[in-house]
């Protein structure tokens, strides 16, 4: 057990401690207790961080289920460290923010912080695990804790709906990912990610390698809200705002990005991988930024912008992995710039999106609404909030002097690189990316100007807005400073995080270019990317100013036709309908139907297998001769059975069965089975008496029963069963493979001292059967006794 293990376990320990302390520390806000965890962990992880050096990867392992190769192995390299720092750093800020955001008196804070700690631990576990199954375990834990957090206000119907939707979608992806992991295990024989990377060539020849890739990608896409699985994210906005800031912008939705980055050394060289990620990412980028324009709720707008930015990061990862393909060997280093951009934008996005969510929370908190139609003109009332929102939004729009500018320029560079090195149709990708960036610019403007400038509607707001408390502003202010710092000094993360991460993602590329160094500067010269930015700003401003003219007609046309939420909702409803229809179709509650299924199954499987193996056999040569009285007896049996079939009187049909019983005992006499004949005779007599007794005490029962209606299906089934069993009997009789062991029992006098062989078998050779048969009889006796005796037990009527 190393300190790294303890670091992951710390939040889980607090999951237990927090509710306990909540009970006894009523004076202070529970958040202050919870704040210990992320701060301690952040300091711990920061101790690995150095601006000038990459960290040496650390591996620590504790056996968990060693018999099936599951070890709780943790692996800390620069990629994991980046995520760990984001999780704990933004986690600290979010906890601090939530202390001021959530009321101590009204909310059930112990649950909030317990879920949050559960999530934090699970997220740390996901990004640090080296073992695929441990990764999967933590991955699902993030889904579960996210589910709990979205439905934190479970009294609201929308919260429950959002939580359920998020869970269905992410869990589906999770299962698919598990499937991919298992295939990887089958192909490589190990669950360790590093060992799989090491044997890359053998793994990639496995015939299920490409399916495994898609299964894992499905997991990443659902978690990271990529098109068309993005629909859960806007509905997850029912969660408290600190949760939206933490889970649904900075950490959990990046788990998919982490997974793609982690798996890139395994799958990156496949063009299917690159193109899938690029196309899905670009579509998500476009669709997310386009839909964000439609929103009036600021949180929903930010949700769509998160979707869009995640698409951007994904597409960059796809472009970067192109460089790993042998086809692009000469340009491989150029493509590596995309990896650099992806990881850099990942950091930037966490920073500015976390800040923006917190600012929206503050607006909500101070004005009582998040609707941009109600907000406006509060710039002078909340100057600090305005400034911080502006920094976040400008960084997201990609304007200098904020860090988003650098990563957006790098994004344009990567997309241009992609189109230069591919056939001409790929040219559409940078154009789509550019248009999406215009949309991004417009909605960033909406966030700033629709909520802070314009006319002030005092009557629409629930409260008189005023500046938020310092504690609440502290977290977004920290993030805003970081957004500026990353623009001015991008070197803060280049050598320590970006360069080693990119080198780790494409090890085979950098084996040939050991001298490569990552380079990021704010000013990169006068080039096409800069003109693209200037162009998008001009068009963006024009479109923003005229937004009222084109927004309503366009979106009313599109939202009616292309609504994925409707597809999901209808799909769920139809699935339920279909399920209940299927169940109702066979679970009718009628015994006859169930018996029909059983008999049909018997006919189909037995008769079918007999037919397939051609096992019919008819051999009458060994038959013993039939005497005339035997023949008559047989006919009598059948006649009695047919009589039972058509008899309308209860009494007569019981008599008919009695006749059959007695003819059977006569047959036993003929078959040289005296004991059987005796027993059959007695049993038949008792049964018939019992039947009759039943009627004697049953005066209410009518003596006649409704006549048997002929039913063709029943007749066919009956005939089928009869034929099947007859054929089995005949074939079994014909095939005599082994000599019977009857000869052994002929020694019963020597072995058991009995001259009646059948009886000695029953009580000596196979006495266990007899004992249990007595038990059966005994149980039946008790059952009959209770059925008759215990009437109306527990009832008063």
């Amino acid at each position, binding site marked *: 057990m190393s300190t790294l293990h303890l670091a992951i376990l710390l939040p889980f320990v607090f999951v237990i401690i927090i509710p306990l302390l909540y009970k006894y520390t009523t004076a202070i806000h529970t958040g202050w207790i919870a704040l210990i965890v992320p701060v301690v962990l952040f300091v711990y992880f920061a101790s690995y961080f150095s601006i000038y050096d990459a960290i040496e990867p650390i591996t620590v392992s504790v056996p968990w289920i060693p018999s099936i190769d599951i070890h709780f192995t943790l692996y800390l390299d620069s990629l994991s460290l980046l995520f760990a720092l984001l999780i704990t750093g933004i986690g600290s800020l979010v906890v601090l923010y939530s202390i001021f955001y959530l009321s101590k008196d009204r909310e059930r804070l112990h649950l909030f912080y317990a879920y949050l700690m559960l999530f934090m631990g699970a997220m740390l576990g996901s990004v640090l695990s080296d073992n695929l199954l441990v990764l999967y375990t933590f991955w699902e834990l993030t889904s579960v804790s996210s589910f709990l957090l979205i439905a934190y206000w479970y009294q609201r119907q929308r919260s429950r709906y959002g939580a359920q939707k998020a869970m269905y979608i992410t869990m589906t992806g999770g299962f698919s990912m598990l499937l991919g992991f298992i295939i990887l295990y089958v192909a490589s024989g190990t669950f360790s990610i590093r060992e799989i990377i090491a044997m890359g060539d053998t793994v990639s020849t496995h015939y299920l390698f490409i399916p495994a890739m898609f299964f894992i990608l499905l997991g990443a896409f659902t978690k990271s809200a990529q098109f068309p699985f993005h629909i859960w994210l806007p509905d997850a906005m029912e969660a408290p705002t600190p949760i939206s800031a933490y889970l649904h912008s900075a950490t959990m939705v990046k788990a998919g990005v982490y997974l793609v980055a982690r798996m890139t050394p395994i799958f990156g060289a496949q063009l299917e991988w690159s193109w899938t990620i690029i196309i899905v990412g670009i579509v998500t980028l476009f669709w997310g930024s386009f839909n964000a324009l439609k929103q009036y709720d600021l949180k929903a707008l930010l949700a769509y912008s998160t979707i869009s930015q995640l698409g951007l990061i994904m597409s960059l990862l796809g472009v970067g992995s192109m460089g790993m393909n042998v086809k692009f060997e000469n340009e491989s280093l150029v493509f590596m710039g995309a990896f650099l951009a992806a990881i850099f934008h990942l950091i930037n996005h966490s920073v500015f999106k976390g800040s923006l969510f917190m600012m929206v929370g503050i607006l909500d908190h101070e004005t009582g609404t998040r609707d941009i139609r109600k907000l406006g003109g509060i710039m002078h009332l909340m100057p600090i909030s305005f400034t911080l929102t502006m920094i976040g939004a400008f960084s997201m729009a990609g304007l200098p002097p904020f860090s988003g500018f650098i990563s957006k320029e790098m994004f344009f560079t990567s997309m241009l690189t992609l189109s230069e090195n591919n056939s001409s149709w790929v040219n559409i990708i940078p154009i789509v990316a550019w248009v999406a960036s215009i949309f991004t610019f417009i909605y960033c403007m909406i966030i700033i100007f629709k909520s802070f400038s314009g006319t002030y509607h005092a009557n629409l707001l629930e409260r008189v807005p005023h500046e938020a408390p310092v504690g609440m502003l502290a977290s977004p202010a920290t993030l805003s400073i970081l957004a500026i710092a990353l623009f001015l000094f991008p070197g803060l993360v280049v050598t320590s995080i970006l360069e080693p991460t990119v080198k780790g993602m494409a090890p085979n590329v950098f084996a040939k270019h050991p001298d490569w160094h990552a380079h990021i500067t704010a000013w990169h010269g006068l080039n096409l990317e800069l003109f693209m930015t200037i162009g998008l700003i001009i068009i963006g401003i024009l479109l923003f100013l005229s937004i009222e003219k084109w927004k309503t007609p366009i979106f009313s046309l599109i939202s009616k036709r292309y609504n994925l939420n409707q597809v999901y909702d209808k799909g769920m409803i139809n699935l339920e309908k279909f399920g209940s229809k299927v169940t109702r179709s066979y679970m009718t509650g009628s015994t006859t139907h169930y018996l029909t299924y059983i008999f049909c199954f018997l006919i189909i499987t037995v008769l079918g297998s007999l037919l397939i193996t051609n096992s019919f056999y008819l051999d009458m040569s060994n038959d013993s001769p039939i005497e005339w009285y035997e023949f008559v007896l047989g006919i009598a049996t059948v006649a009695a059975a047919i009589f039972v079939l058509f008899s309308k009187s209860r009494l007569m049909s019981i008599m008919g*069965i009695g006749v059959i019983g007695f003819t*059977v005992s006569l047959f036993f006499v003929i078959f040289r089975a005296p004991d059987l004949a005796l027993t059959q005779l007695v049993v038949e007599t008792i049964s018939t008496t019992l039947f009759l007794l039943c009627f004697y005490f049953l005066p209410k029962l009518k003596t006649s029963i409704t006549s048997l209606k002929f039913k063709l299906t029943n007749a066919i089934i009956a005939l089928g069963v009869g034929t099947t069993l007859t054929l089995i009997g005949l074939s079994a009789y014909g095939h005599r493979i082994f000599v019977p062991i009857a000869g052994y029992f002929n020694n019963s006098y020597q072995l058991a001292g009995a001259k009646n062989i059948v009886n000695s078998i029953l009580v000596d050779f196979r006495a266990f059967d007899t004992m249990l048969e007595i038990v059966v009889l005994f149980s039946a006796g008790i059952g009959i006794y209770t059925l008759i005796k215990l009437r109306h037990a527990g009832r008063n009527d």
Partner: protein
Amino acid sequence: METFIIIISGILFTIAVYLILNKNFLRIILGVTLFSHATHLMLMAINGLKKGNAPLLSEHGEIYTDPIPQALILTSIVISFALTALLLVLGYRTYIELGTDNMKKLKGESHE
């Protein structure tokens, strides 16, 4: 003889299944009884019939019929007797409690 008995028991099986698929409780019980009779007959027939003396050692002669199926069937007769008796009383109680012996009416309510 064996073929004849197997065919007879096949006919009994057919009638028994038809009775079991019926909706009247009594007919179902009768069907079950008939089914066990048919099974016993077939079990005997498959092993060959009348191939020797009754399996009693005092009988003169060296060849006996196979005693094993006889022992099996003896056990089976007793068990099916217990089953029939229980079913019968169950049907009787059902009729007393619910006032019907029609399986269609015993379906119960559909939930949901």
